[in-house]
């Protein structure tokens, strides 16, 4: 028997995951799988169809009277029972989890209906009447700063909620001295990693104790626990937060469930019963959280050889309608890393945070990284293109030198370890860069469109809880007191039978934490990982946790697994003493292996691990003096390197810094604009690898998200703030057909700052890959500027020449009506057997209008030129009832008239304007010609955008054809389908 624990470790091996058996057989317990109390109510949320509007009235009577409804909660109730959520900057603004007097984005909660089941709750939710006064909206962050922009929060005075300027080194002189000034201007779009499991919350309230107990598939950070408890106006110990054993992915997004914890807590309190809410996909897309979009101007002072001496950043961060915790995390998480993988001594930064009429933003895999590396690495390619240098050389010449680690960046990060030059060199050699250049040459010689892209990035992990305070001025920070660190905690416990359990507060979202922790602890204690049981979900009422607990900024391997190692080591040291007593030897002679504890000198002198470990339960009196107990060790670990920002605003924003160098070759189909990723190579330095297969899994998963961000995914908003990618048929997540398999390489430089030498790895490709692909596409089509997502339509737009025109071009219709909304335009004509005067009369006659307005249930005359109607509109099975308001303008009897109409209903709202001209074509006949422009918003615009144009054409066509038929005596005047039937033979 050989005892040499280090030679045969579990860590570093791809052992099967302990999580999988339950997940593969349907036994895993996700939030919606857990039993609830029998009196639990289901919640359905009434949400705003408008991007910006004052709430005039919320009428809940009809909903309250609906079957199965117990209560309806409104903004007023929430305001009465809670306080505004904490905002991360100093600003005169409130932040509520539900609209109180104003809605500021499509999907913002307005009321919550609580009923005995979800079907009934949704039925009743439709009966909540909300009257809105629509306000102009602003969705573009740059426009939001304009003088004319509508202001979301009047108390702020403008949409700029925070601005800070920073200067490190001497950027002005560096720019003045540099021979070249090269810049890029970037609009980084919004996207979201959209876990397949949506949010879920189950809330209980105990009025006797004034205490909340809330189960949510929340991922952390648990600093949010304080935000929730404060909002609910209870001390932290009356706000017990639990997470379910399994969570169906998060990628940062499930941090954003917390406003719903507050809402459901209040709902449970008002209803006097537990409340459960499972978010649906439409709600998730419209109103969970997404990444920030950002407008960035980045300039570099560049030497002739491509060396950068200074960077000047100007970032406008769009956080949506509210600056919701932990934002502005996305903007400041990268603050120490604004020079990427490069040694650049002089940096200026101007950061502005603006609010727009879009969903509030939050954490999203790589948060802050994609928004920074897109400009930075586009800049590197632009420098190479401008100075006609090899892009690899431009990167290589600027890398932080290998002998400089640990390296302090200009903005304050301490890059823990790395050998960037060697990693890059290995990637080029082992990844086949030269062959790729050959492929490009061959392809281009054959007339094909082929390009190569590169990207280098530093991947930060283990956030400093203090980085966010860089948004405050040094004076403000002085007042607030320092914030820093990254407390990780782990508990290793022994039960009376001597088996080992591990408990952490890492709240895994699918990454396999339990497997890795079993490996780490098994190594420390000489056990089989299969014998170590691990719990990683959290109960704040019972478990050890800190504000830094949770699953974010890639902290598991470096911090949590490290803390578990420290706890297991501590237990091991104690057990050595206990075992030494039992084996009649000294602690230094003790070794742990194969479930036994033995003397190194005499391996046959051994005892089972469980016997030694359980001694503290059964015979504490036998423990040596120096050992208090061996039942439970809880370790809290925070690295010294994570100091608060200093007076010069230097901040070591993260503990660890992985390195990534990616390159790829893409081919564009010149006739369709489609991109095919021909080869993708990604080199990672994530320090010590704990579980190779899981590391590959993290890289592949991040890569797939990034392919989506590069080519497919975008949260699209209309100019009026209507949300256009409201279903998974419009928000396009890559499938197996769109994601190629990357070549993954590793170059390990262990972190000196973490117990296991590990660094984070799960977010890197979300930072490096979007820009790497964009660089390749820009190279392929020789474009100066490209904007994500690079859809085939966009790409073809960049490379296609002049379009062949038609000999008989269709007439262009100039938009003239309501601006901002999703615009639909059209025209048509019909000839009728009636004079102009007769037709004119019809247009002003309520009875005629009733007969010809599609689906009319009655037209009421308000004045000679103003009518109100109740109509059922729709195409195919998509039908809804609306209230319509129609006015006639610009009357030019009997030649022309303008109709302006507004409709509001359950499926959304619309307004439109049509100009009707009547032309006498002889023999008592008239030609009715019309053009129209309409805007549609609300639910139908969010989920059925693709079909809207055509649907509107059908409905508007129906009206004018019905008019034609009526004039010609052909219309029956019955239902709208009957008229439609009549149209088959008639019309234009």
């Amino acid at each position, binding site marked *: 028997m050989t005892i040499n624990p280090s030679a045969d470790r579990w860590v570093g091996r791809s052992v099967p995951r302990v999580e999988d058996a339950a997940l593969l057989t349907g036994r895993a317990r996700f939030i919606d799988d857990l039993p609830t109390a029998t009196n639990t109510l289901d919640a359905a949320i009434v949400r705003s169809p408008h991007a910006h509007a004052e709430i005039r009235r919320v009428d809940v009577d009809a909903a309250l009277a609906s079957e199965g409804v117990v209560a309806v909660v409104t903004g007023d109730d929430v305001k009465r029972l809670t306080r505004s959520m904490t905002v991360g900057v100093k600003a005169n603004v409130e932040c509520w989890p539900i609209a109180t007097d104003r809605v500021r984005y499509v999907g913002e909660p307005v009321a919550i209906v609580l009923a005995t089941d979800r079907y009934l709750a949704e039925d009743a939710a439709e009966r909540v009447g909300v009257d809105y006064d629509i306000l102009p909206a602003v969705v573009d962050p740059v426009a939001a700063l304009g003088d004319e922009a509508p202001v979301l929060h009047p108390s702020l005075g403008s949409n700029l909620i925070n601005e800070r300027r920073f200067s490190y080194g001497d950027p002005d002189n560096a720019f003045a001295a540099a021979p070249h000034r090269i810049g890029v201007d970037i609009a980084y779009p919004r996207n979201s990693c959209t876990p397949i499991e949506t949010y879920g919350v189950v809330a209980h309230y105990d009025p006797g104790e004034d205490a909340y107990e809330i189960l949510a598939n929340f991922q952390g950070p648990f600093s949010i626990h304080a935000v929730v408890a404060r909002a609910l106006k209870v001390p932290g110990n009356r706000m017990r937060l639990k997470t379910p054993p399994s969570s169906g992915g998060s990628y940062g997004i499930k941090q954003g469930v917390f406003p719903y914890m507050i809402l459901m807590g209040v709902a449970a309190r008002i209803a006097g019963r537990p409340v459960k809410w499972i978010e649906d996909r439409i709600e998730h897309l419209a109103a969970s959280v997404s990444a920030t979009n950002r407008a960035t101007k980045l300039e570099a002072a560049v030497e002739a050889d491509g060396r950068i001496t200074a960077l000047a950043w100007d970032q406008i961060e769009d956080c949506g309608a509210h600056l919701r915790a932990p934002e502005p995390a996305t903007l400041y998480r990268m603050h120490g890393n604004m020079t990427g993988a490069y040694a650049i001594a002089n940096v200026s930064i101007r950061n502005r945070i603006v609010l727009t009429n879009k969903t509030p933003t939050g954490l999203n895999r790589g948060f802050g990284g994609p928004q920074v590396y897109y400009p930075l690495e586009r800049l590197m390619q632009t420098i190479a293109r401008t100075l006609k240098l090899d892009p690899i050389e431009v990167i290589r010449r600027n890398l932080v030198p290998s002998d400089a680690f640990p390296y302090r960046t200009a903005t304050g990060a301490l890059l823990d370890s790395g050998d960037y030059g060697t990693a890059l060199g290995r990637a080029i050699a082992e990844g086949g860069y030269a062959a790729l250049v050959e492929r490009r040459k061959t392809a281009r010689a054959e007339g094909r469109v082929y390009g190569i892209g590169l990207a280098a990035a530093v991947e930060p992990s283990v956030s400093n809880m203090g980085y966010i305070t860089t948004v405050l001025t040094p004076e403000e920070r002085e007042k607030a007191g320092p914030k820093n660190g990254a407390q990780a905690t782990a508990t290793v416990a022994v039960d009376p039978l001597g088996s080992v359990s591990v408990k952490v507060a890492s709240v895994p979202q699918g990454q396999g934490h339990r497997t890795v922790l079993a490996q780490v602890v098994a190594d420390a204690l000489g056990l089989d990982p299969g014998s170590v049981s691990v719990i990683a979900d959290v109960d704040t009422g019972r478990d050890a946790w800190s504000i830094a607990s949770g699953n974010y900024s890639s902290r598991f391997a470096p911090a949590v697994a490290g803390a578990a190692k420290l706890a297991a080591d501590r237990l091991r040291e104690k057990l050595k003493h206990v075992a030494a007593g039992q084996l009649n030897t000294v602690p230094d002679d003790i070794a742990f292996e194969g479930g036994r504890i033995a003397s190194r000198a005499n391996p046959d002198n051994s005892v089972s691990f469980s016997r030694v470990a359980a001694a503290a339960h059964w015979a504490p009196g036998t423990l040596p003096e120096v050992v208090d107990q061996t039942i439970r060790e809880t370790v809290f670990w925070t690295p010294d390197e994570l100091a608060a920002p200093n007076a010069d605003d230097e901040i070591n924003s993260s503990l660890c810094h992985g390195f990534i160098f990616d390159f790829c070759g893409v081919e564009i189909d010149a006739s369709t604009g489609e991109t095919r990723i021909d080869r993708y190579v990604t080199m990672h330095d994530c320090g010590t690898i704990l579980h190779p297969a899981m590391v590959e899994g993290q890289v592949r998963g991040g890569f797939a998200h990034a392919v989506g961000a590069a080519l497919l995914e975008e949260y699209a908003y209309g100019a009026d703030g209507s949300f256009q990618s409201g279903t998974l048929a419009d928000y396009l997540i890559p499938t197996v057909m769109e994601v190629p398999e990357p070549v993954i390489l590793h170059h390990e430089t262990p972190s000196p700052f973490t117990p296991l030498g590990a660094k984070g790895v799960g977010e890197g490709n979300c930072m490096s890959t979007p820009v790497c692909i964009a660089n390749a596409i820009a190279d392929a089509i020789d474009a100066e500027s490209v904007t994500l997502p690079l859809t085939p339509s966009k790409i073809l737009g960049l490379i296609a020449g002049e379009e062949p025109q038609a000999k008989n071009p269709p007439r262009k219709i100039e938009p003239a009506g309501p601006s901002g909304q999703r615009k639909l335009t059209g025209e048509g004509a019909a000839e009728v057997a009636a004079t102009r005067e007769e037709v004119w009369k019809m247009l002003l006659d309520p009875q005629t209008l009733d007969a010809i307005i599609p689906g009319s249930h009655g037209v009421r005359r308000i004045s000679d030129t103003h009518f109100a109607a109740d109509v059922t509109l729709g195409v195919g*099975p998509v039908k809804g009832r609306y209230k319509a308001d129609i006015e006639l303008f610009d009357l030019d009897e009997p030649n022309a008239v303008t109709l302006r109409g507004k409709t509001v209903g359950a499926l959304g709202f619309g307004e439109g304007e049509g100009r009707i001209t009547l032309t006498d074509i002889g023999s008592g006949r008239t030609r009715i010609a019309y053009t129209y422009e309409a805007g549609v918003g609300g639910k139908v615009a969010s989920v059925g955008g693709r079909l809207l144009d055509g649907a509107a054409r059908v409905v508007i066509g129906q009206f004018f054809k019905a008019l034609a038929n009526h004039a010609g005596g052909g219309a029956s005047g019955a239902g709208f389908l009957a008229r439609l039937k009549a149209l088959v033979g008639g019309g234009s």
Partner: protein
Amino acid sequence: MKPAPFDYVRAETLDEALGALAEGGEEARIIAGGQSLVPMLNMRLARPSVLVDVMRIDALSKIEPKNGRVEIGAGVRQVALERWAALAGTLPLVAAMMPWVGHAQTRSRGTVCGSLAHADPSAELPLALLALDGEVKLRSKRAKRTLPANEFFLGMMATAVAPGEMIEAIVLPAHPMGTGTAFREVARRHGDYAIVACAAIARPGGATRLAIGGVADVPQAVALPDPSDPDFDDQLNEFAWSLNARDDLHASARYRRDLVRTLGRRTVEEAVACRS
């Protein structure tokens, strides 16, 4: 996302179905595979008060080839047509299109006629019906009628099916010997609605026909000369413009016209090449 309440009637015979439809009037809706209808029910975009399930009516579940035509009943699932042994020989164009219809997991439930009733302009099966000059057999409690494809589609998701009426079957003409056919499509992702879908038929005599889905409100077809004809591109360009393409989230109008010109030409060339 739960449907509003509705009554559900499972018809065992065609008469039962037509009776329930007649009774339900405008508020009644046929449910077959439900793959287009149920998402709209879940989103409460559609809220019929009565759903008439026709999938247990044996008489509707037949694929019948006769006299150079193939009749496909309202209960025929897409997967049944896809796996119909004679499909590739009888209707090669449809055989080429079937893998593009949704995903295997929706073809397993969705019906051929259901897709036509839904009349999504980007869907493949409406394009097939139009490209092949097929017919739709409509039936109500009182009457039967048959409409050619170009009279069946009235607009975006709008068809000539009247209240109380249902599609009983469609009839697709089989290709004469030697006909060349081809199908091509560009979508954002595999299985997505087409941005542009092209179906081409080259008759042995020399006439070629190109049908385009995804651009106009209904699929549209045009007769074109041989691709070698100097007028081909001009005629195709006129056709591309005539479709009134629109900008949307996924593609610009110009892009759609570009695809009609390039993909359309390619598709016709392919059909001509496999004609004999």
